[in-house]
């Protein structure tokens, strides 16, 4: 029953307003677009994810099927699903920017409410990204 201890690959919030399958799809897309999940990387099974996060396997399986439909994941008989090998290591810049658009829209809205202009916001983001690297 016990699965070996693993480092959590995803951050899932069951109580969020965003359905769990949606959270998973968005994260895999981002991790693939940024190259953090390289082609051929094995993903944990539906059962492993469901058990690790104590969530209904149906929602995980729905996410994997959607990603497979998009050509991002590859199903392998009797083996774990992998990041599809046909994909480039990372998406083009416009593709990657599209992935982050929802977060940017929310950020822009908050910035407007706080009366921050784009130069101030860009400076702040630059600083944050510099700090993180």
């Amino acid at each position, binding site marked *: 029953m016990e699965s070996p201890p693993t480092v959590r690959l995803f951050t899932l919030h069951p*109580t969020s*307003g965003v*359905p769990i399958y949606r959270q998973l799809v968005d994260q895999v897309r981002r991790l693939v677009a940024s190259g953090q999940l390289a082609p051929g990387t094995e993903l944990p099974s539906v*059962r492993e994810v469901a*058990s690790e996060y104590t969530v209904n396997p149906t*929602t995980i399986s729905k996410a994997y099927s959607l990603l497979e439909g998009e050509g991002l994941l590859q199903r392998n008989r009797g083996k774990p699903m992998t990041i599809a090998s046909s994909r480039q290591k990372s998406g083009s810049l416009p593709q990657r920017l599209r992935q982050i658009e929802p977060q940017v829209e929310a950020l822009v*809205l908050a910035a407007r409410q706080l009366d921050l202009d784009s130069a101030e916001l860009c400076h702040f983001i630059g600083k944050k990204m510099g700090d993180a690297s």
Partner: protein
Amino acid sequence: MSEPVVIAQNLGKAIGRDTILRDVTVAAARGSVVGIIGKNGAGKTTLMDVLLGFSPATSGSSQLFGHDSFTLPGQIRGRIGFAPQQDELVNMLTGRQHVELTAALLGRWNRALASRLQGAWGLPMDRPVQKLSGGERQKLSTLLALGHDPELLVLDEPVAALDPISRRQFLQELLDIAANPQRTVLFSTHIVSDLERVADQIWIIRGGTIVWAGPLDHLKESVARLHITARQPLPATLPTTLRATLSAAVPRLEVLSMRVAGSRATAVVAHWDEAALAPLREALEADIEVESLGLEDIFIEFHS
């Protein structure tokens, strides 16, 4: 979708002059985990009682495995496991004696599953039930409902008396049990965050009526809180205008609640569609931020 294991059609239940259930139409497909939520007294327990045939419906019909609930043949009853909210354990008997009795009565028992659960839940089996804590009684009651490998498992508030660690263990077990695609689970709870983990279908019951029945994912995607900021102060008559504009933009849209103050308004809507955002922004000449809601907020909004 596979064949429904549980079907209720226009189900009604009245006791004396009180209507407890009104026009309930729901179905649970094989393999699904249905979470039932409602306020105290909303009719959750009565719904389970009527669905299981413990109490006759006063109108409409309900079926389990294709048979009328109230006249279920014995062999169909044997495919169902039920743990009531108030356990029906016998105080002077031990857990082990309860297990032996239940196994003998039902004629089949999954000893491996039962002993695994006993161990995992740390259930003392040789103590009279009288000496068990509330949580231990609840675990025993659930074990008795599970031990014969039922195809339909109905649990009324199974985690109410459990501490957070036992609750999480129980949810994990429930997920393992529900992983069998032949098994259907119906359970009620007030702990909304548990439903968000375990249920794939949600029934929201309010005043004896089902106000939502469908996939949890769909519920979360379909209910949204709109934060509307207009360029100028909004008139007092806005709620009416806004409702009309919103309904015109998304035909099935239902406004659950709305508040207006100055140039800002907040509306919670059901059957929301992201495609309506751009036309709505234009029609209202306003910035609109869409906030998705967790199940607890959605539940509260259905009661506002």
